[in-house]
């Protein structure tokens, strides 16, 4: 990757960092988490594609790179599906059992 490309990518990352930090102080309600995660994904993709050179690497390497994140998505989706649909009361943390 060219020096120019590297520092362009760095500038984009810094802009996104400023944007996500500023957005965190704007009252967006329940959209807050989604917005900050969306920006984090864009930042991660910039690092993965340019710094980690997935752009231009062969398809097998890309498949390996995707695999970890794919399994992670399954893990998060299934455990979150469980927790969001529990109807039992949770044990209060601050009261003796």
């Amino acid at each position, binding site marked *: 990757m060219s020096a120019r490309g590297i520092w362009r990518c760095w500038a984009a990352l810094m802009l996104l*960092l400023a944007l996500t930090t500023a957005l*965190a102080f704007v009252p967006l309600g329940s959209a807050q988490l989604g917005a900050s995660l969306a920006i984090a994904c864009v*930042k991660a993709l910039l690092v993965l594609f340019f710094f980690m050179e997935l752009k231009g690497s062969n398809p097998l*390497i890309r498949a390996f*790179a995707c695999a970890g994140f794919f399994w992670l998505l399954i893990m998060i989706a299934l455990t979150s599906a469980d927790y969001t649909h529990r109807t039992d009361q949770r044990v209060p943390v601050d009261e003796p059992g």
Partner: protein
Amino acid sequence: MTDEVLTFQYADAAQQRDAVTLGMWAFLATEVLFFGTLIAAYFNYRIWFGPEFIAAARMTKVLFGTINTGVLLTSSACMAMAVSGYEAGSRRAPVLWLIATALLGLAFIGIKGVEYWLEYQEHLVPALSFDLPRYGGVAEIFFLFYFCATGLHALHLLIGISLVIWLAIWIGTGRIDRESSTTRLIGLYWHFVDVVWIFLFPLIYLAGRSG
């Protein structure tokens, strides 16, 4: 660790290069899941404890976290400069960029250390010094997550810093072959540690700021 000569199982240098890169990505996929379990736990806590958990996140030091994110992103750019200089055949520039990378990594650890110290003084460290009556049990769970996640991240960064210093010495003293993939592979590891932080930062520091 250096692949100075083409080892016998490969047909050519390009195949060897692809194979070692693939091996590194296979390792990184296990690391994605390693940190991913922590992040999955975070989401479950957030669903389960709701506003109390988010309120605890507000006690983290957002200024320190933001500066540290900037430091780490810059270190990644320096690492990319080191790799691109090395692949272009230069010897001196990559060593300097690697030193810059290691120094930024150490700066991150230093800032994190100050943050931990302040949290210790505020009695926010579970098991060691936690003011339970004041902050409550959900906050203790949040800070347990916080110290596990940032502590494991810092450990990875320390490993990365050691590798980068070792690599700078090896390139500087000419003990590494020009065709070697080692620089690129250590670069991949460094950037991965950066990616982990990119996700930890909003989850830990930015949650509940506008509430």
